């Protein structure tokens, strides 16, 4: 199999041709019929709810979907998996009329159709819960639900109807929610509920859920799956996108795998395994084992005490959090995203001011409720790989070499008086490009044009090469392909081996468990428990859901 080639950066045409040959032979095992063009049909689903044929879509230079074929049986739950950026959301958005395919055919209930806009999708019985919620924050639940389906020029009658209908739906699917609550003030779990209700309110027969569980605790996810099963049993069709193979095995009937914009395989869930799916997803057999040697743990380099952080809206997001990270140690912070991890990192790194709290950094005690800025923290030996490199870690308009000094631009080695020493900066950027294998190896291209993995490497190189004592690192492998993940994990282990203190925030339990020496779990701003790396996923999952077993016992 041409698996090696898929790590080659960039314009992977060679990879496609090589891989394509091998694809059919895998597929042949499960797919009953393959036509001349390699299109597959699944026999049992005689009446497919959805059929996509040869759908392609590109965004400027990025081909998000390439000649996609997909068949979704009526009354089934169909999973779609694939790495970040594989094109799953794009494909679903095409199905929902949000984007227009550049080419290809869509069939709904065996009839060729076009979906020019979301309105038409809704009319054809498609509902979608988007990865990034499509809710109007200042609106109430009710207003969000009826938006676009108000049932009359005046709101009054529609609202009364909707209120009734909502209550019915809530009862039927066990999804209670206050219809007059302002959506922006609801927790994410409930916001998602609103999204689902929106789709059901419009009478969707086909429900698309794009990574619905990313923001849910395991028990909330279970509840969601129960609902999905009820829907399926009522004859509705569900398309479920997720990264979590376990969920796929749990709830779906069929699963399709996407990689790099292509649909590489479809399987009956019952006839496949997690191992096979993982392999299909990344194009080679995966062994996400990180080599974690014994390292002698030294004195605490970072100590946080009684940290409280309030957000712009005045909501307390971090509540009385205390911990320490020692030299040669990786402390993992697990938790469903949105439970205060981002605010914690922002406060520690000096980006936002805390309500109260102290931090001891390399022996110096800082009052975090006093004004600090990120530059100051850096001079004290703390560096920070932010969770969201697009929003924070990089200035997309800047060239690579300019990004390579972001936050360190005031360091003497980069300046000549008030001027930047561009020669020195470029020289160092060049060295790092080589060391971190950043591709393409140019200092002059703007950050926007590097792919996700390479962007992350630019940030990592910058934050690691300044030789900090303490490294804060948030979601280090989000949106990053498997080769880069390995590389990044190794770098983190190197830091640990060098006796640095690493604070790792990730929503990927796998990642946390394989890298950390200790794990603390955050829920609703609180640290709800501490575990060793050997803790089971179930154990951590419960903590993440806010169930503190120790307390319960």
């Amino acid at each position, binding site marked *: 199999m041409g698996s090696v080639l898929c790590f080659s950066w960039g314009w992977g045409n060679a990879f496609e041709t090589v891989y394509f040959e091998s694809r059919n032979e895998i597929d042949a095992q499960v797919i009953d019929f393959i036509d001349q063009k390699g299109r597959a049909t699944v026999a049992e689903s005689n009446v497919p709810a959805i059929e996509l044929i040869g759908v392609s879509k590109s*965004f*400027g230079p990025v081909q998000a979907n390439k000649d996609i074929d997909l068949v979704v049986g009526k009354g089934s739950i169909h999973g779609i998996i694939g790495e970040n950026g594989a094109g799953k959301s794009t494909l679903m958005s095409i199905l*929902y009329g*949000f*984007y227009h395919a550049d080419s290809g055919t869509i069939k709904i209930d065996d009839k060729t159709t076009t979906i020019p*806009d*979301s*309105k*038409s*999708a*809704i*009319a054809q019985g498609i509902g*979608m819960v*988007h990865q*990034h919620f*499509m*809710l*109007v*924050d*200042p*609106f109430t639940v009710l*207003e*969000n639900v*009826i*938006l*676009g*389906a*108000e049932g*009359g*020029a*005046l*709101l*009054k009658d*529609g609202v009364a109807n909707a209120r009734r209908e909502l209550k019915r739906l809530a009862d039927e699917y066990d999804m209670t929610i206050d219809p007059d609550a302002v959506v922006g003030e609801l927790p994410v779990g409930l916001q998602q509920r609103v999204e689902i209700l*929106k789709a059901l309110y419009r009478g969707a027969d086909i429900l698309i859920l794009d990574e619905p569980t990313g923001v849910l605790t395991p028990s909330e996810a279970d509840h969601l799956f129960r609902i999905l099963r009820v829907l399926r049993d009522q004859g509705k069709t569900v398309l479920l996108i997720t990264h979590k193979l376990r969920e796929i095995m749990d709830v779906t009937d069929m699963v399709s795998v996407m990689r790099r914009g292509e649909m590489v395989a479809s399987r009956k869930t019952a006839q496949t395994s997690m191992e096979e799916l993982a392999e299909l997803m990344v194009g080679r057999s995966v062994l996400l084992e990180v080599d974690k040697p014994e390292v002698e743990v030294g004195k605490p380099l970072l100590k946080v005490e009684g940290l409280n952080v309030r957000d712009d809206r005045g909501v307390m997001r971090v509540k009385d959090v205390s911990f320490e990270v020692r030299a040669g140690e990786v402390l993992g912070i697990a938790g469903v995203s949105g439970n205060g991890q981002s605010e914690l990192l922002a406060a520690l790194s000096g980006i936002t001011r805390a309500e109260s709290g102290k931090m001891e950094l390399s022996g110096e005690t800082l009052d975090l409720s006093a004004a600090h800025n990120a530059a100051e923290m850096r001079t004290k030996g703390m560096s920070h790989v932010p969770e969201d490199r697009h929003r924070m870690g990089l200035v997309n308009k800047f060239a690579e070499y300019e990004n390579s000094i972001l936050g360190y631009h005031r360091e003497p080695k980069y300046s000549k008086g008030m001027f930047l020493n561009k020669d020195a900066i470029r020289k160092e950027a060049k060295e790092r490009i080589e060391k971190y294998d950043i591709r393409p190896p140019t200092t002059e291209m703007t950050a926007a044009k590097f792919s996700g993995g390479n962007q992350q490497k630019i940030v990592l190189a910058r934050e690691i090469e300044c030789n900090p004592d303490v490294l804060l690192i948030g979601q280090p492998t989000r949106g990053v392909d498997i080769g880069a993940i390995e590389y990044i994990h190794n770098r983190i282990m190197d830091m640990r081996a060098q006796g640095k203190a690493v604070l790792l925030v990730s929503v990927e339990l796998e990642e946390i468990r394989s890298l950390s020496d200790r794990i603390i779990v955050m829920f609703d701003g609180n640290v709800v428990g501490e575990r060793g790396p050997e803790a089971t996923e179930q154990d951590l999952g419960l903590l993440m859901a806010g169930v503190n077993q120790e307390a319960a016992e």
Partner: protein
Amino acid sequence: MLDTIILVLDSTFRLSTPLLFACLAGLFSERSGIVDIGLEGKILGAAFAAAAAAYVFQSPWIGLLAGIMVSVMLALVHGYASISQRGNQVVSGVAINFLAAGLTVLLGQAWFSQGGRTPALSPATRFESLTLPFADTLANVPVLGPIYANLISGHNILVYASFAAVPLTWWIIFRTRFGLRLRAVGENPSAADTAGLSVTLLRYRATIICGILCGFSGAYLSVAQGAGFIKDMSAGKGFIALAALIFAKWKPVNAMFTCLLFGFLDALAIRLQGQEIPGIGEVPVQVFQALPYVLTVVLLAGFIGRAIPPKASGIPYVKERT
């Protein structure tokens, strides 16, 4: 004393009216996510068209109609630039302001040869003051009489229209389907889009309403309050209306009170100018002339702090980042 108050308030109404129309115009536009600093230009264009048409057709109503048409046309230019072409909305607004300032005078000169002015309008071709029923009979009733006769009665129809537009706007924005959708596209256009709504169409509709209201504002200046068009006669009202909109936090009833406040400041400045102020003495007139602007800054800075605009305002809606 009561008389003085009534007179200042009376003047307040007259001065608030064009602001109120423009402010509501901006409200529709910005609620839908389109920032409009071209209000000024639209008012000016409308004032010119209204005066020209009122003169040519000898009818204020035709004038009003022409004013609305021209204002809507300018609004559509802004809409095309900022909705269809996803251009910078502030820049487009600046361009509209220049365009109106230049074209009105240029065409005015070409058509009427009076240095860009339109010929003066006779009373019959203007909106004249209406005397409400019983105003004269009730005038002698103490306190309420003068208030009714002098303050409430005796304005032209556009003044009443502007105040009537406030509850209407409120009702449209908060009680109709269109209003709900409008607010949605201003806050989160993607949400509206995925709900099956056309962001483009909604925003165009908001822009057109904005144009219509600016048309009223302009027509008021040239065929109701004034009697003909004079170059640059909008004199910054569009900008003040924008400031009022921010101050009103994009809410119609607030907008009315803010415009009344700005009108009142203006009226007060006019009233106090050239008079000894107790304890201070005579203040240079320039102080009064700058007063509304200074107060705007002070109010923006001190009282409302960070006013949070509709989240998507000023940002072109781009679905596919190609």
